[in-house]
């Protein structure tokens, strides 16, 4: 079958897409960066972090779940959108327990890197200071819900790639939290393994592999040397088991 190419326009740049692609898919394929945290190429998009909000005319949409359609004129890298994205990032920070100097993910964390990319100097909103449960039951994997931004990536990775269904998000609004699918609700009693995509995809320090902390010194980590724009454009589609 012949692939039919059509085009959308992002910030004045014409970008081809094929039927079925979202605005995010088309942008990434053309190496145009739209900020995102809960999107990972190859996993079903869930549209929950809203960092990828773009404007089509006067309408704001999430690029990761909006199908590309011929002739769309899209604004992406504008100061108004980046300001809105900064506010979203600040809200993600204050809602969780993000004390970066005490976090093993620091320097490798995408939430932090998004703050750097958007020039976030302070968190602006009042802190929630919620106490969310830590699950240290598993010998090799730590779950600190305090740092979870509910991006749903571990949920999708476990379901779609690992074929295990270890995680789900329960509750709504500020009550929303990550739950573990095991008889005790503890990671130790689930069938997660350190090599699973779900154990490694967390963009923040909520799911960490134990016994490898601080192998790379602070100051020499990913986002000490690269921007999230650079790494976001390099991420390749994950390989699903049934591919």
């Amino acid at each position, binding site marked *: 079958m012949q692939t039919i190419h059509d085009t959308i326009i992002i910030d004045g740049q014409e970008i081809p897409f094929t039927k079925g692609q979202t605005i995010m898919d088309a942008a990434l394929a053309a190496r145009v960066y739209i900020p995102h945290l809960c999107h990972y190429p190859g996993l079903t998009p869930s549209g929950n972090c809203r960092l990828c909000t773009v404007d089509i005319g006067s309408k704001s949409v999430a690029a990761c779940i909006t199908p590309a359609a011929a002739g769309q004129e899209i604004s992406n890298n504008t100061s108004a959108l980046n300001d809105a994205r900064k506010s979203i990032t600040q809200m993600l*920070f204050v809602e969780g327990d993000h004390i970066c*100097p005490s976090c093993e993910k620091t320097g490798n964390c995408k939430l*932090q890197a998004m*703050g750097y990319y958007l*020039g976030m100097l*302070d*968190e602006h909103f009042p802190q929630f200071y*919620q*106490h969310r449960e830590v699950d240290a039951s598993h010998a090799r994997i730590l779950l600190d819900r305090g740092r979870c931004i509910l991006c749903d990536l571990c949920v999708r990775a476990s379901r779609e790639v690992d074929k295990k269904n270890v995680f789900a998000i329960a509750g709504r609004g500020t009550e929303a939290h990550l739950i573990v699918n095991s008889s005790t609700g503890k990671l130790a009693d689930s069938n997660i393994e350190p090599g699973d995509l779900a154990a490694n995809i967390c963009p923040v320090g909520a799911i960490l592999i134990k016994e490898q902390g601080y192998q790379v010194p602070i100051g020499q980590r990913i986002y000490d040397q690269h*921007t999230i724009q650079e790494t976001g454009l390099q991420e390749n589609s994950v390989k699903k088991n049934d591919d």
Partner: protein
Amino acid sequence: MTKPRIKIATTSLAGCFGCHMSFLDMDERLVTLFERVEFNCSPFTDIKQCEPCDIGLIEGGVCNAENVQVLRTFRANCTTLIAVGACAINGGVPAMRNYFDLQDCLREVYLTGTGVTNPQIPNDIELPLLLDKVYPVSGVVPIDYYLPGCPPSADEFLQMLEPLLTGKKPLLQKLHLHYD
């Protein structure tokens, strides 16, 4: 005639003095800086009372009644007030107590914790009263600029101060931004 020097005051509230140490990492650059600035109230000078100053640098979050008083005095006296470091900006490591009840923390540390001898919760009247939580400085007074980092490097301090010394607005380069 030599120009009057810019007056800077600094303080450490609920912090570890790491930001102050990092400031001193300017090393020989301090010599040229001192041609243009002088320190007023600061741990560097041991001057205790803040007089009217051009710039105030606040390290640390707000964990007790004394911190509130010092911070308010700084705000009242400093034309430009800068929150320096992770603790001043979001409470930092001391704010990790915010996820727990204060009484529980005191009980664990002074009464029931491992290795405690002569258990008693300190209550000398000389000790400033603890607040229920450790707050970012912006929760108590308005802040003009933020300098993130744990600590910010000497270069970053200079990047913040240089424009201010000539009356310009500082703009931290994204290249330098880090929260750790």
